[in-house]
């Protein structure tokens, strides 16, 4: 161990460590041996690297330590005046809704839950907690490779564990709405979500993040996804935090034999967002598709960093990232695909594209390949540029005004990501959000 790797206790790192030191005994599940051990390991992993700075390669383009305020207080659960903020978070048609307020389970609404789904409140962990929670909680998205994920486990105040029982299919979509109401000052929430889809089950998940208020806070989420054999998860994330928020989501997914994971990451809000996604294609035939859309106006920073582990033969991964960057915003797309020894016939592709709308916008990409097996097909592509002048000219020559022509081309650019993924209500909601962001991003650019 070199001197540099020893823990540095800067004020931002200290913020988390102090919180733990002061509140360890009151954290949910404190005293449960299995959880204490995992929390301890997670805290150690976090303490060892400290709050991420650009000195850590995986955080090269996102300096969380600089962006984070150092006087944040732990977020508090639901209060009566939060009702309005919750009412704003719309329910998708027919969806079962679970509402989290500042990371605490608040209510279960919408169409209500079916029998095929079990939900456990992580703020109420006890000796009676079911085995499946004990088995999985904190096994993923809590290591040194996902530093903030580790912090979210160590400092977990609440969250949910959801299980879809084996063989359950044709369920209504499940919507998890995370709402962060204003508290008048900067707060930090550390939330965990565990999702277990058992063998042969299938689920459509819609995860929304919304917030209010101008205070600069941190919403830190650690999410674990476990897919059993032949399980299918279609996951849509709509991140639309309030303007001052730092949104960090560490997602760890484990894919069993022949399981399928499709995810669409939509990044629109927040001052800074970082999605740190590790997908492990653990068993033969597993398949993961990651799509990402970021439409950034004003002065936002959106970072999507993925690690795709092809750990077994005949695994497939596809990644398609598109960013539209306006104003003084910055989009970061990083992804490492690792094909482990013996994972032959792995098939992987990454494509990153970014459109820069203005002279102050920036896009950074780092698509990485790390390959230790020879019989593989892996590739990646990146393109960063502006709207095609010829196409603009073509449209304008046909009498379409400049603004409209630009919007048309940007929409066409993004359509590939949404097409074939979202349908109906969800699709409309995505486009509505994209159009709002675009109008603002393009306005800022002109």
């Amino acid at each position, binding site marked *: 161990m070199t001197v540099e790797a020893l823990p540095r206790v800067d004020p931002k790192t200290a913020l988390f460590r102090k919180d733990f030191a002061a509140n360890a005994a009151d954290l949910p599940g404190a005293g449960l041996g299995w959880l204490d051990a995992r929390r301890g390991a997670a805290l150690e992993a976090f303490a060892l690297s400290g709050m991420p700075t650009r000195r850590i390669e995986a955080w090269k383009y996102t300096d969380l330590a600089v962006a984070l305020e150092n006087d944040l207080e732990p977020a508090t659960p639901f209060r009566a005046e939060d009702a309005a903020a919750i009412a704003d978070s719309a329910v998708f048609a027919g969806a079962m809704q679970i509402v989290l307020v500042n990371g605490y389970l608040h209510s279960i609404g919408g169409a209500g839950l079916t029998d095929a789904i079990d939900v456990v409140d992580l703020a109420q962990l006890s000796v009676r907690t079911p085995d499946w929670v004990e088995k999985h909680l904190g096994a993923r998205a809590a290591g040194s490779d996902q530093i903030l994920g580790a912090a979210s486990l160590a400092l977990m105040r609440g969250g949910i564990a959801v299980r879809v029982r084996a063989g359950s299919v044709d369920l209504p979509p499940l919507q998890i709405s995370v709402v962060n109401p204003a508290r008048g000052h900067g707060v930090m929430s550390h939330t965990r979500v565990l999702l277990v889809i058992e063998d042969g089950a299938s689920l459509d998940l819609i995860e929304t993040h919304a917030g209010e208020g101008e205070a600069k806070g941190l919403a830190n989420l650690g999410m674990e996804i476990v897919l059993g054999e032949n399980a299918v998860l279609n996951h849509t994330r709509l991140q639309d935090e309030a303007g001052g928020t730092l949104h960090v989501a560490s997602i760890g997914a484990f894919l069993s034999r022949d399981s399928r994971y499709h995810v669409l990451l939509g990044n629109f809000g927040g001052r800074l967002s970082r999605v740190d996604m590790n997908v492990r294609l653990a068993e033969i035939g597993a398949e993961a598709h990651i799509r990402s859309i970021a439409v950034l106006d004003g002065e936002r920073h959106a970072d999507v960093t993925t690690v795709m582990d092809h750990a077994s033969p005949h695994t497939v991964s596809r990644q398609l990232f598109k960013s539209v960057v306006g104003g003084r915003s910055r989009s970061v797309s990083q992804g490492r695909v690792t094909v482990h020894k013996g994972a032959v016939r792995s098939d992987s592709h990454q494509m990153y594209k970014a459109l820069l709308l203005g002279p102050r916008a*920036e896009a950074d990409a780092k698509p990485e*390949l790390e390959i230790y097996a020879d019989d593989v097909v892996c590739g990646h592509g990146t393109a960063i540029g502006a709207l095609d002048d010829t196409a603009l000219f073509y449209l304008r020559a046909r009498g379409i005004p400049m603004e409209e022509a630009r919007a048309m081309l940007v929409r066409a650019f993004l359509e590939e990501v949404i097409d074939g993924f979202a349908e109906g209500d969800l699709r409309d909601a995505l486009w509505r959000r994209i159009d709002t962001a675009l109008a603002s991003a393009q306005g800022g650019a002109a």
Partner: protein
Amino acid sequence: MANTETTERVSDLSGEKYKYGFVTDIEMDRAPKGLSEDTVRFISAKKTEPEWMLEWRLEAYQRWLEMREPKWARVHYPPIDYQNSSYYAAPKSQGERPKNLEDIDPKLLETYKKLGIPLSEQMMLAGVAVDAVFDSVSVATTFKQKLTEAGVIFCPISEAIREHPELVRKYLGSVVPTTDNFFATLNSAVFSDGSFVYVPKGVRCPMELSTYFRINASETGQFERTLIIADEDSYVSYLEGCTAPKRDENQLHAAVVELIALDGAEIKYSTVQNWYPGDEEGKGGIFNFVTKRGDCRGKNSKISWTQVETGSAITWKYPSCILRGDNSVGEFYSIAIANNYQQADTGTKMIHLGRNTRSRIVSKGISAGHAENTYRGLVSVHPRAEGARNHTQCDSLLIGGECGAHTVPYIESRCPSASVEHEATTSKISDEQLFYCLSRGIPQDEAVSLIVNGFCREVLQQLPMEFAVEAQKLVGISLEGSVG
């Protein structure tokens, strides 16, 4: 014609896996082991350098003491003991400088014969001038007269420091400053010799310039320093080829190459690196930590790097271009082959600063045996670089299930009118292609060589003729025994 000799030499090459594994016994004039201010003074004194040069070196040395060895590259090697190596070695016969070929130590000439480049014949080789670096001191410079007539200065850098101090002072360290990185700083302190080229305004250098570097003495680090300046509207093509004798002890090599292209100038820099890669168990081999950087300082200038990296146990090398001048062009064509236990971490940086700057990167990585091969590259477009264009293509080929091929590109764009494109693929030699060749009676090794040469063609085409023939053979030799 001129190439018969090269071809013969290459046909010799294919006879054995590493022909250059011999040691010539020449009495060395060497610095005692270890690195201190005294070592730096010793080297400077040996070179009869002016005071300013010594100060420059000492400043670098002081800086180096505060620096740490970089660890970010994907290469693993035992810690280097910088005190257990000698930083200067010169063939003894250098005491009195030879007037012509006859005066040169016959043993030296013998070594070149083994290398297949006897100077006498080399002089005729397609008008190539050779500034041969035997260990650290240049022993002979040919075609000097012809170059002098054109006004081109081509000499050992130690000579340039004495005779053209105004040029050296102006440009040395202006592309790779003494503070740049651990290995470049070390080089700045202890560089022994290297080449210096100055092409004056409007001159097209009348011949390809070429230097053969060679590490000979046991446990002697080589610290070459090359400085090439192409003045306005000039052109120069520089070839660098390397071989080294077989050794068990790891040898350290930390070279620095600086290129400066002024308005309208063009520099083409080609390298074939075939140093001792270590044996099949990964024992021995050269550690190659090189800083190469070109500065397109002037408008409409162009710098083109072509490299064929087949040797060395460890390669750490990123020939880069700073595209400062408007409309300047940077190119990087690379073949990196790693076999057995070789580790290569190589790539480029293209820094777009000027308007309408263009860059192109073509990288072909081949891994076999237990080797690890990494492409690491940066394309950075600054807000001022309106209309900049980049296209990057990096392909990796894997031969066998024990090797690794990695791609680590960094792409940063801060200019909306710039267009940056990157594509990469990784695959193995196709069974169908191999089967096709085998069923037509082509032996396996030859078939692999054929397929790999096809995979590398785009880069091989960029090499000057003499090198292209040699490099093609080299590709085959480097991969011998890697399949089946």
